[in-house]
């Protein structure tokens, strides 16, 4: 679909003869058109070939049975059987959905509230503000894989910081091995990294709020809390949308940290793990993995499309 749209643009520039003195100064010369077409065309082709073609590939493969190793002629088309199996029989699917949902809710509540609170506290003339911000941003530069490693030193039953602090050394809690609690232990680590990012987004948002609005509210006798919840927060709607999109995508992408900890088993199953297991794990059922990928795609498009609409409809108006 999109690939077809690209074509005419790349062909068109060869049409007009080069070096024709344009009647208007804005008319592009032939070589310029060609250069422009290449400048747009090459990146577009790379992006389409490696991002959108595989996306369509996932959709196609989700209707097939294939081990992924044989040639393309080995693909057996089986309709929606993969989806039926996933929803009715696949034992790891529903736990994974549940874990992704918990992941999303946790990220939407904990780091968002903490990040917003910290942003509000720091959005003023304050000594050491830079130092505070640096400390709070720091986890952001670490990869989630590394976050998994570092937090294992805290959670490990023998000599981990958490058990020692809680005085549980004698009867240690296995924060990562116990499938009832390990998801939350991992979520705390993920939230640790996510909070700084949310804080950064809200700090930028707060700075962009017109101070006159707050002053007007104060003159009308509104308290700080009222000003914040009735004026500042609603005005930050664009930031709130970005935070929501970032958080949903982050929750759907979650993979590295659980994979590093236990390859996404024993209470840490996630949709992303179910997909990846078919390529690098024990399962090698490309069709079923692709169907899970399509489910991920559907959910993510649910936030991507409204986001694009919000961003680009504004663009058309200006």
């Amino acid at each position, binding site marked *: 679909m*999109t690939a077809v749209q690209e074509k005419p643009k790349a062909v068109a520039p060869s049409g007009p003869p080069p070096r024709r003195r344009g009647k208007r*100064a804005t008319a*592009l*010369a032939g070589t310029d058109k060609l*250069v422009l077409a290449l400048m*747009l065309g090459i990146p*577009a082709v*790379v*992006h*389409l*070939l*490696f991002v959108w*073609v*595989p*996306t369509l*590939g*996932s959709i196609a493969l989700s209707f097939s049975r294939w081990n*992924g190793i044989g040639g393309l002629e080995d693909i057996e088309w089986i309709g929606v059987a993969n989806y039926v199996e996933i929803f009715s029989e696949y034992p790891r699917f529903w736990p994974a959905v549940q874990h992704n949902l918990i992941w999303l809710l946790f990220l939407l509540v904990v780091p968002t509230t903490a990040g917003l*609170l910290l942003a*509000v*506290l720091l959005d003023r003339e*304050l*000594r050491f503000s830079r*130092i*505070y911000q*640096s*400390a709070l941003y*720091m986890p952001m*530069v670490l*990869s*989630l*894989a*590394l976050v998994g*490693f*570092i*937090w294992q*030193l*805290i959670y490990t039953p023998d000599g981990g*910081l958490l058990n*020692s602090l809680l005085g549980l*050394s004698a009867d240690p809690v296995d924060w990562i091995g116990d499938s009832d609690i390990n998801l939350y232990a991992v979520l705390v680590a993920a939230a*640790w990294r996510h909070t700084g990012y949310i804080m950064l987004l809200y700090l*930028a*948002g707060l700075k962009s709020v017109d101070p006159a609005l707050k002053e007007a509210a104060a003159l009308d006798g509104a308290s*700080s809390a009222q000003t*914040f919840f009735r004026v500042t927060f609603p005005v930050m709607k664009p*930031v709130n949308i970005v935070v929501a*999109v970032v958080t949903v995508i982050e929750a*759907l992408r979650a*993979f590295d940290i659980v994979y*590093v900890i236990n390859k996404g088993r024993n209470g840490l199953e996630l949709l*992303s793990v179910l997909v990846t297991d078919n390529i690098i794990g024990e399962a090698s059922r*490309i069709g079923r*993995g*692709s169907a899970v*990928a399509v489910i*991920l*795609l559907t959910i*993510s498009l649910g936030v*991507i499309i409204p986001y694009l609409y919000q961003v680009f409809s504004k663009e058309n108006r200006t």
Partner: protein
Amino acid sequence: MTATLERPSVAVRKKRSVTPARVALHVFLVLTCLMTLTPLLWAVYASLRTYEDTSVNGYFSIAKSLTFENFAKAWEIGDLPHFYWNTFLITVPALILTLVLSSMVAFGVSRFSFKFNIALLMLFTAGNLLPQQVIVTPLWRLYRLIELPAWMSESESLIDSPLGVILIHIAFQMGFCTFVLSNYMKTIPYELTEAARVDGASVFRQYWQLTLPLCRPVLAALATLEFTWIYNDFLWALVLIQDGDKMPVTSALQNLKGTFFTDNNLIAAGSLLVALPTLVVFFVLQRQFVGGLTLGSTKG
């Protein structure tokens, strides 16, 4: 909490006195920062202690002696220089090409209007937001289909080759960079390129000599961000590179865990060594890092 703390700020700006609320605010912030830093500090502490010390006294104890031995050991046993080099071979070309290609798209999209202007930009933006797992399976298969001459890739295909990882980084990261750069380029006055055009500057000159130099601050911010993101990538290399020896350092962590066995002091030291490049970038280029993320959210 917020309500009580917020009010004094207005008063303080006027007379700058030390109010209890201000003190409370600082205490709260200091504690929060300390809590945030605890995991890293704990790792630093563990990495500086000897195995003998911690195996006898446990980790939650006062260190008998501090040593850098673990770092030297992790560096050697983990063969870290080799994996840093793998990362370097992927990160640098991916970073440069991402910035070059996305600035070209951003230039085209923001300076000229044609039919697919917005559609193209939307496609790039949407592509960047997809979860990687949506595309990873067909990509992995596609890579095995694409054959390459031996001088381009030892494996003679895109799979198991740094080139393949570079390509997907470029394709994927271009979305974010294009979005940010096009927003920035829209703020550059049209008259500027218009004047250059009237003077006979070619499209490429308008891009290379006029627009790009004006975008230097954004390019610096994006370079900082993209460096950390590409450096931190775990999934692409894990899936697309099968030979553990060719993996970049972040993905190699998985194997290092086996190499270091259960020696947590070594794991701590190894983790910190892997984190070091991004931490250095963060401390040196923090303004660019933060600026880049802010640019991506609030539209220029």
